[in-house]
């Protein structure tokens, strides 16, 4: 109940309705993909590879589940329970914990597997596989899905795990690809066993029950304000960054922004994302995926490689300062200086990314040129667009999203990605026009020109954003007052 009310009554619910609809579309898209996979995979494997589809599926199941766990660690939010006020009410602790855990079980991340496993199992049945075995296999798979669900909850506090999993999956994949070590040789025995050996399905079921019990106990034990629900206190050190004083107001704000990023979990993810985006280009330039290997897609990636920070940080300006927006509004603050500092931060991050991205030279000078041009466009155009968009963003940012066991921990989510998409289309189109109508170099020159042009208009844009800030002031203040 509480959760529903918080959801419907928050300002972001109304203002972001369009976004919600977009997210629903994305959800439907994934659903359809999984559905198609569930039905299609059987016939595809049978036809193309002439192997028993079940054996092939079981073979790659280890990657399926590892990947699932990775996605969960990164994207799945542990439901934010407004749990503190519930503690003193006459509700049994076990009810609170069961409710919280039960809620995670209904998450989209679990439901989506339905669309793969259910049709796949039905296809198996129609194709004359043993009924009991299929059902037992199915139960086994579901248990494993939920094992992942609870693993995610238990592991959620540890960010470095995500990296470990990436390395693990990449490592296993590479070794298998080069025939060094094939992990599926061992794991497929287990997954296939779920089908062949009746009673083996009990193993995942038992593991699931055990995990539920562990999670349950963990939360029962930590359900106090000073343990699971407390915030960690770190030792603070005053940092003056006096070298920034020479930059005047910009320096003043820049100091704060650096501290903001350093000291808050939520903002730290932006750095993490920039690193991740930096490597995103590999998918496109390493000729790994055929449909990605064309000029339009290359430009797309070029923007992404250096734009990670821009996209993830920029669009939440001024929301990063939402917690103390009334302070900012009553101080004698020049908006220009404020915007300028955020802009510089974005520019610096983009520049650093461009330098780091020089390893793309490995794929040839042209590829790196695309990235450099992408960076020019990012600095000239996207940095303004993103600040402009931010002026309308009225979702308060909860910087202290590390509130222990039940806190809202996942700062990065699908929404963040979706708002960013339009900023990518324009350069891709410009590049495409130049590339196909004249030649590749013209395409690059046009995009770079757009960047320079945008840069020249900087003052105009800033004045414009300033106006929006002023016009939206009361609404923004009001929206920021409602947390979360």
């Amino acid at each position, binding site marked *: 109940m509480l959760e529903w009310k918080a959801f419907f009554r928050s300002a972001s619910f109304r203002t972001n309705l369009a976004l919600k609809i977009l997210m629903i579309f994305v959800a439907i898209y994934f659903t359809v993909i999984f559905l198609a996979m569930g039905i299609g995979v059987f016939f595809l494997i049978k036809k193309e590879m002439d192997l028993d589809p079940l054996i092939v599926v079981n073979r790659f199941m280890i990657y399926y589940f590892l990947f699932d766990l990775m996605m969960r660690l990164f994207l799945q939010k542990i439901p934010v329970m407004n749990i503190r006020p519930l503690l003193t009410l006459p509700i049994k602790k076990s009810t609170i914990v069961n409710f919280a855990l039960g809620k995670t079980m209904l998450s989209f991340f679990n439901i989506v597997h339905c669309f793969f496993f259910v049709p796949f199992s039905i296809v198996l049945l129609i194709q004359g596989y043993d009924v009991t075995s299929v059902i037992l296999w199915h139960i086994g798979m579901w248990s494993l899905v939920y094992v992942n669900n609870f693993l995610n909850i238990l592991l959620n506090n540890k960010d470095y795990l995500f990296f470990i999993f990436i390395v693990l999956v990449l490592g296993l994949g590479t070794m298998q690809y080069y025939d060094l070590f094939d992990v599926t040789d061992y794991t497929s025995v287990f997954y296939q066993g779920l089908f062949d050996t009746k009673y083996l399905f009990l193993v995942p079921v038992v593991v699931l029950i055990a995990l539920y019990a562990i999670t349950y106990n963990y939360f029962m034990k930590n359900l106090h304000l000073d343990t699971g629900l407390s915030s960690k206190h770190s030792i*603070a050190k005053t940092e003056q960054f006096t070298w920034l004083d020479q930059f005047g107001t910009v320096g003043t704000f820049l100091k704060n922004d650096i501290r903001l990023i350093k*000291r808050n979990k939520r903002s730290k993810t932006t750095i993490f994302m920039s690193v991740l985006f930096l490597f995103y280009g590999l998918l496109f330039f390493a000729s790994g995926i055929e449909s990605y290997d064309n000029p339009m897609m290359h430009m797309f990636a070029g923007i992404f490689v250096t734009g990670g920070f821009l996209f993830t940080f920029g669009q939440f300006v001024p929301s990063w300062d939402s917690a*103390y927006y009334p302070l900012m509004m009553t101080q*004698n603050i020049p908006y220009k200086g404020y915007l300028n500092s955020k802009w510089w931060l974005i520019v610096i991050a983009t520049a650093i990314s461009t330098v780091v991205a020089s390893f793309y030279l490995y794929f040839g000078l042209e590829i790196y040129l695309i990235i450099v041009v992408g960076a020019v466009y990012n600095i000239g155009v996207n940095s303004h667009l993103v600040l402009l968009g931010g002026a309308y963003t009225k979702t308060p940012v909860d910087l202290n999203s590390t509130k222990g066991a039940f806190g809202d921990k996942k700062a990065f989510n699908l929404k963040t990605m979706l708002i960013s998409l339009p900023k990518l289309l324009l350069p891709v189109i410009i590049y495409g026009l130049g590339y196909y109508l004249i030649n590749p170099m013209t395409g690059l020159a046009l995009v770079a020109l757009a960047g320079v042009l945008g840069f020249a208009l900087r003052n105009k844009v800033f004045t414009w954003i300033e106006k929006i800030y002023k016009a939206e002031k009361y609404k923004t203040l009001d929206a920021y007052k409602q947390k979360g």
Partner: protein
Amino acid sequence: MIQAKNLSKTYNGTTVLKIDNLEIQKGESFGLVGNNGAGKTTFFSLLLDLIQPSTGEIINNDFRVDHSESWKSHTASFLDESFLIGYLTPEEYFYFIGDLRGQNKADVDALLQKYEEFFNGEILNSKKYIRDFSKGNQKKVGIIATLIGNPKVIILDEPFANLDPTTQFRLKKIIKELADNPEITVLVSSHDLLHTVEVSNRIVALQKGEIVKDIQTSSETLEELERFFAV
């Protein structure tokens, strides 16, 4: 110094504040008392242009607050924790405010030194971020930050709440000192009649958004107010 004319604030047909005319003189120490929902914070928010008035206007030193921003340079305020930056240490916060008000590090240090007693050794060099402080200590930070840069108008909402008795006593001393300066106008709101009477030379009582009492403080003021609120 501050003038409110025909001021009203209405939310969905409910009028939460209605002040026909209120003038606060320069150098006055102005106390605002009233029960919950009487409109104290609403008045301060309007004065700081954090919300829009439904009708009327507030003029702060010749500047209409919702038209000009010039009042910001001589006005300092602390309403609640949204005036603090949680991820900063108190020192960083003070220097940041100092930067915004054109004070250098030495100026700020001098001011902090002056109020060392008020901090009671719990604020400076504490190796803690503001977000990790208790409510009372956060309030100390916020209150002292309003004094940076010699503001002409100081606005404090419920400054005594959450403070321990000793600190309340010290705060009263600080506010009285400010009140004695004819250049500084202090506006304080409180539930606590005794505190307000002690630090203010003029008290206005609000009830359901309207001014019901407007008195110059004298020895009988406390009694008069207590009689009024004892319903």
